[in-house]
């Protein structure tokens, strides 16, 4: 398909980009284009102007900031996957980013673009939510921190205000004793997750001290599996883990589409949470 007419600007700085966005309420930010361009081509979106921030150096790169890792919004998935800082500090992010679409898309698509798009079927929103990441927004007024729990508002809707750009994400380093896993269930390698489960797990003396679980594609936004998190606290690694994961889908409202009905997604959430928890705990 062919997109409708739009203007294109490539600002030289984040400040310029914010200005361009503030001056035109129908303008959209263009990052890697891997989600936006299909929408344009299908004529599901008619932005007046694309503000291309994809090459702004100040939005790119991974930075070790002591207690947390900062990933610039325009860092590509591929750069995230290969970053030693991410692999060491936030292995869950590297694991999940490696499952995004295919190699070509991972070289174009950006970490921040994927989060700002706020597609609950994307892999990274659930991961950032599970890790209690903090999203950093910039506008002409300055910078503000948005906790992941407040960032994802609805389907394809974030709490970024008009004129705001996602600058990057702060991801806490969880330190020793934590295990991680991203369990993605999809029909073909390039397809979106029917359900995905991101788990960060702290072990202590053969039991689970703490579990943080983010669910992909189990509602209009990424969600935490709070009931399972609570049930897992203090559970010894072994047979009881499965039972503790039975509440994984509690409180979710999974979508219905060609690939799965809600009841099947709820079932998958339980099974996959169990598998992800076992994998994160190092169990075979």
């Amino acid at each position, binding site marked *: 398909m062919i997109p409708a*007419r739009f203007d294109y600007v490539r600002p030289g700085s984040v400040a310029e980009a914010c200005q361009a966005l503030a001056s035109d309420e129908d303008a959209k930010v263009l990052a890697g284009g891997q989600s936006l361009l299909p929408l344009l081509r299908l004529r599901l979106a008619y932005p007046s102007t694309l503000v291309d921030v994809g090459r702004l150096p100040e939005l790119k790169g991974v930075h070790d900031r002591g207690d947390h890792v900062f990933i610039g919004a325009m860092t590509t998935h591929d750069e995230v996957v290969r970053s030693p800082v991410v692999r060491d500090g936030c292995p869950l992010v590297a694991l999940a980013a490696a499952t995004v679409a*295919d190699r070509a898309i991972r070289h174009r698509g950006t970490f921040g673009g994927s989060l700002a798009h706020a597609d609950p079927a994307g892999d990274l929103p659930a991961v950032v939510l599970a890790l209690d990441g903090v999203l950093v927004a910039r506008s002409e007024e300055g910078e503000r921190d948005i906790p992941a729990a407040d960032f994802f508002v609805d389907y394809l809707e974030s709490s970024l205000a008009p004129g705001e750009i996602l600058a990057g994400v702060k991801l806490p380093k969880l330190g020793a004793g934590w295990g991680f896993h991203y369990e993605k269930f999809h029909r*073909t*390698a390039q*397809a979106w997750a029917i359900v995905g489960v991101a788990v960060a797990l702290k072990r202590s003396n053969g039991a689970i001290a703490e579990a943080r679980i983010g669910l992909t594609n189990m509602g209009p936004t990424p969600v935490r599996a709070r009931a399972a998190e609570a049930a897992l606290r203090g559970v010894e690694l072994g047979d009881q883990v499965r039972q503790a994961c039975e509440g994984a889908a509690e409180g979710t409202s999974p979508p219905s589409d060609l690939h*799965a*009905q809600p009841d099947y997604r709820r079932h998958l959430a339980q099974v996959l949470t169990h598998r992800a928890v076992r994998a994160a705990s190092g169990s075979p």
Partner: protein
Amino acid sequence: MTVEQEIGRPRRRKEDARLLTGRTRWTDNLSRAGMLHVMFLRSPMAHARITRVDVSGARELPGVVAAFSGQDFAAEQGSLPCAWPVSEDIVIPDHPPMAVSEVRYVGEAVACVVATDRYRAADALEAIDVEYDPLPAVLDMTEALMDGSPKVHEAGNRAFHVKIESGDVKAAFRDAPVVIDRTYVQQRLIPSAMEPRAVLADTDGDSFTMWSATQIPHILRVMLAVVTGIPEHKIRVIAPDVGGGFGSKLQVTAEEVLCLLLARKLGRPVKWTESRSEGNLTVHHGRDQIQHIRLAADADGRLRGLQVDLLADMGAYLMLVTPGIPMLGASMFNGIYKMDAYEFGCTGVFTTKMPTDAYRGAGRPEATFAIERVMDELAAELRMDPVEVRRRNWIRHDEFPYTTISGLTYDSGNYEAATDRALALFGYDKLRAEQADRRDRGDPVQLGIGVSTYTEMCGLAPSRMLGEARYAAGGWEHASVRMLPTGKVEVVTGTSPHGQGHVTAWSQIVADALGVPFEDVTVLHGDTAIAHKGMDTYGSRSLAVGAIAVVKACDKVREKARKLAAHLLECSPDDLEFEGGAFQVRGTDQRRTIQELAYASFTAHDVPDGVEARLDSDATFDPENYSFPHGTHLCAAEVDTETGMVRIRSYVAVDDVGTVVNPLIVEGQVHGGIAQGIAQALFEEAVYDAEGNLLTTTMADYLLPSAADLPDFQLDRTESPATSNPLGVKGVGETGTIASTPAVVNAVVDALRPRGIHDIQMPCTPERVWRSLEGERR
């Protein structure tokens, strides 16, 4: 001089350097001075009367040269052709390229815009105003045939009914110890060629040239003349390099006809290229049958009789060979098996969906699926091994030629050899042991083993048989072989490759036939002004029919060269032997090479009286019989009973495609074919909603597997040459697709049979597998 035989050599393809490095021009890359771009406004309604079309808004927009409704073309656009009226009483509805008064599927063209670029054309589509008066959609074949169903066409929803009987079916079923009765659904598929359809039409005012991403430039030319009334000799059709077809480009499309008419009306070149979503809506779809199959057998597994009753979804109209597709399967439901009686019935049904037509295998995958699935069901019923039940019924290798219950004569084959080889490669007994172990342990991941022993009819087709089947054309193929003055060879073929590698394979064949180097042969094709006669490429016909015409033309070249050589060497033609590209007088060192003779015919200084000074020759080959590749495919599938996910663990294919000209090309065809068959088993399905909207318009919804989703295939071959052609070749374009779908589904069902499951509707998605298990758990 001894020359290594070319036939059988794994030659890399001559085409690939050009195709893989982008040094070719696909239809969409072509540009003509003053070229315009057309885009079509398509119906959003499955079924409606068109009450008003107003294109005036579009005409006013910048860059727009013209905009038309169907009404504007009503007098000249004709009706898209159906060349296969399978029965006397078949209903062939009028099929205007652009709808005039009624739309019958979502995606049907209702208006078009011609503009200076595609962007402006696309924008202008939004300025066209169409008013519809909705009519009820007709989506379910069974309901469509009920009294009182809304009608797709005035004449009703039944396009045709055909019944074929052979042997005493009643007797075969009477008192039969075992009767298996099943209904299978062949889901609707969307052919997904890598290159989208594209058309460019140009005119010099009097005559017309069309470039199209088509499999059938020759048939297209005839049909364009018939549909539009433009004289055939004023139309030239060119199929440049074409990026795949799988049957989807075996069609005369609305867009082709309209580009031609627009070029005539506007006097300028007009181009159209579809988008992928537009293609999902409007490339003809494949499969879509409901198959009721009944099998009668003795207690020892011997087959007595087979009854097949099909409902075949035609979609909204009959396109080029739409009604013929299920009929191509009519003689294939009996597979490789002997039986006493067979009955086949087929009803073609109109629905308000995109028309169906040829898709890789075309009727034969559907038939093979049904018989191979039901053979597994018979084995299960009798508690026999599925290989054993096949062994008891198949035609033994010493029984060829064998005339089957459906009337075809299979000329050659060796099912025992292919099966034994496949079982050994697969490690059948070891996998059965693992399966038993997993069952005993209650492993959440169960193992299933699927068998498919298939044959197919290839090499379309003996013209007389096509005549008997009421097909409007013949099945011959044409070739010319030209000897150039320098001894190089130019081959003109009537086949129209779109990925098959004919240039390479034909070069190998000619190299052997004339004793010339492989590199010295070039092959021309796909342009009706160059390859003036041809029946094009589909139905695994190119090698088994088209290449045989090349062989026959080479025979003629050799005979002409022999006469010239005898004259120059002052001997009798009978004293000459041809070897290594030269004629030599027996027992002497006197010889003339084919290149010397080509030059001698060019100078013509010393050509005998009454002999034409050329070696160039033409031949047309019309096969006497189809060819019958066969093989045994085995699939091991792991089924995760907790999630329903199916993973193919190993896959073995032992195919017998007769003589192999180029093993690399054969393996490529088998790989792609198996992938496409697995795709039907596990991934692909065109889905319409209750209002008749296609839901699978993008690749996010219509899932195509990639290499990452498929196992390594273990391939091997047996070789029983075909007896119906001098090369012994059978064709390989469709075998993998035909064989693999039932192998995979048989494996999935085999894994779950202890849970009381004996069928899973294709595609066997994780959700469907899980729901089947849930149904059993309840």
